[in-house]
């Protein structure tokens, strides 16, 4: 019974919100524009490091957020400049390489005083300013069957703030997608030369999409860091692929797809792990093994999704974002 309540709690947890935010960013890249960004975790990591390091150096919250956004934007510019003029699979290779470079640079001993190297940056070094803004009391607060802390880490406050950000971003995506700007991107997604022949600067539009989606990804990273910690290994390739799965499940190019996919998948994954934990004895499947099983489950879900229902739950088959 507790397991069910905990699973329901996952539906609206700050962690789910963080991934929903990241997935919306990827939706701008892939759903709207058709960009094959295989390194989205890199944007998240830059956002997380940017916020944490800036906060440790004394920056107030708003400045730390701006710094993390600027870092992601710069990263997008650097990535886009050589690759947006090339074929799609080059962007895929470059983004995956670049994200890995970010992770490796984050891990390197040489930058240890800034990044904490392979141990990362622990929460208490940077969470305080945000927690201080919470209007809730500093204790565990039960609401119905759910219980969260008022201010610390994955708190009610973080839940409120991060899901508000999700709501804002959903509105943002909706506005952009139905605007002429969004229309150009949808054209680019299908046929760049057609759009060029109509007088639009395709390179500039793609770059704008890359920067915007990257910044949103950074916000996802900040959100994640505020609920957990900043650790390079927690935002690597598996994270990028998880976000792809969430997006494709909910439906790429749809407005609510990223959020829906995040909620459904993460709650299900939690439930599966929980069931394995509770019902299967530890000597057959231990906790770390349950983790690997659930990740294998992510991989298989991704495969099945893309083969049998690439438009996900909310996507429209006719508007399939995937080009052959």
């Amino acid at each position, binding site marked *: 019974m507790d397991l069910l309540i905990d699973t329901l709690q996952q539906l609206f947890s700050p962690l789910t919100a963080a991934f929903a935010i990241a997935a919306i960013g990827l939706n701008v890249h892939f759903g709207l524009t058709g960009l*094959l960004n*295989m390194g989205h975790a890199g944007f998240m990591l830059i956002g997380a490091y940017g916020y944490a390091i800036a906060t440790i150096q004394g920056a107030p919250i708003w400045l730390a957020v701006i710094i993390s956004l600027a870092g992601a934007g710069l990263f997008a510019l650097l990535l886009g*400049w*050589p*690759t947006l*003029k*090339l*074929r*799609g*699979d*080059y962007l*895929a*290779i*470059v983004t*995956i*390489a*670049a994200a*890995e*470079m970010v992770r*490796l*640079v984050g*891990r*390197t*001993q*040489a930058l240890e005083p800034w990044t904490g190297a392979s141990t990362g940056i622990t929460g208490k070094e940077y969470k305080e300013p945000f927690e201080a803004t919470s209007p809730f009391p500093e204790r565990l607060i039960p609401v119905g069957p759910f219980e969260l802390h008022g201010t610390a880490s994955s708190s009610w406050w973080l839940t409120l703030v991060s899901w508000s950000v999700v709501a804002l971003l959903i509105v943002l995506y909706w506005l952009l997608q139905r605007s002429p700007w969004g229309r150009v991107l949808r054209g680019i997604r299908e046929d760049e030369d057609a759009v060029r022949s109509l007088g639009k600067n395709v390179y500039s539009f793609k770059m704008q999409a890359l920067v915007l989606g990257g910044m949103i990804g950074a916000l996802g990273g900040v959100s994640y860091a505020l609920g957990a910690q900043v650790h390079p290994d927690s935002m690597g*390739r*598996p994270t990028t*692929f998880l976000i*792809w*799965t969430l997006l*494709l499940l909910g439906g790429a190019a749809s407005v609510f797809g990223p959020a829906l996919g995040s909620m459904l998948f993460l709650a299900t994954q939690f439930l599966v792990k929980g069931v394995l934990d509770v019902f299967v004895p530890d000597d057959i499947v231990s906790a*770390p*093994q349950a983790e*690997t*099983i659930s*990740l*294998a489950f*992510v*991989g*298989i*879900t*991704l*495969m*099945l*999704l*893309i*083969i049998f229902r*690439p438009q996900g739950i909310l996507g429209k088959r006719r508007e399939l974002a*995937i*080009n*052959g």
Partner: protein
Amino acid sequence: MTNALAWARAHSMALAGVLAVLFLVWLAVAPSTRDLFPQTLANGITFGLLLALASVGLSLVYGTTGLSNFAHGEQVTLGMVLTFVFHTMLFRDMLPSSMSDLSLIISGTLAVLIAASTGWIQDWGLWGRLRARGIGVVQQMIVSIGLSLAMLNIIQYFIGGERLRLDRKIRIPYDLGIIGIKPQAAASIIISLIALGAVAYFLLKTRLGRATRAVSDNPALASASGIAVNHIVRLSWVFATGLAALGGILLALYEEGFAFNSGGRILLLMFAAVTLGGLGQAFGALAGALVIGIVSEVSTLFMPPDLRYATALGILILVLLIRPQGILGRAERVG
């Protein structure tokens, strides 16, 4: 200014080669690096050869089907895992301890054969069917990402997270004066040279090999000239997975250990090698792998060693800026 850039692009290969040689020469003579330079160069070439063996298959599959196979890293790991299982659980105990090397060889051979058969099964059961349904290469790529994640975790489930050793004996390095080579490395180099030579011979001199190159170049044209493209593709998958497994085994010997993610860790390096060499060009993979290997090892002379792969990846991005078709690729194929 744009004229200078255009000239640089047109002569990028020559320029890059000259700059690279100059840089290496400088490293060889500068007092701060010259002592370690020969060893790092030797390490780089060794790693590059092994990487080449592992990457050739990636290039073969991309060339014949257009698929960037993200699960190729796990195919490399598969070779290591299968060899480990056969060696430690089967053959080593069947043979006297003085012949454990033989056990290793038998296990390795068996592992390569089984891995090659997984290539056949994959193309028959999955990739061939996806192609027949008209599912595009981008979708297939995402399928391979899912497969990679699944395989990685299934492997981890079975062998756990710690580092394992294929070969537990401590062996004394050969001292060749300025460089030292461990016997495992020496064996790996020799085996990989033989294997790469065999691949080269196959592609250049045999009818099947020439057909494979034709399919890589232009599948429609190859099919129109009577080549059975589907058979060639199936063969490419068999070779790709077999070679990947062999590369994995040799890598595990060279690095004196492996883990569930050894293959996944070098996936990006393999992509880098293949892209650097020219997507779809099998010989390009060799050239690219050597560059990546040398760059990552030599970079330890002046950058922190835990950034060696980051340096190699950085070089990849840099090259794509100036010469997106890679070392051996043709200029028209891109963008």
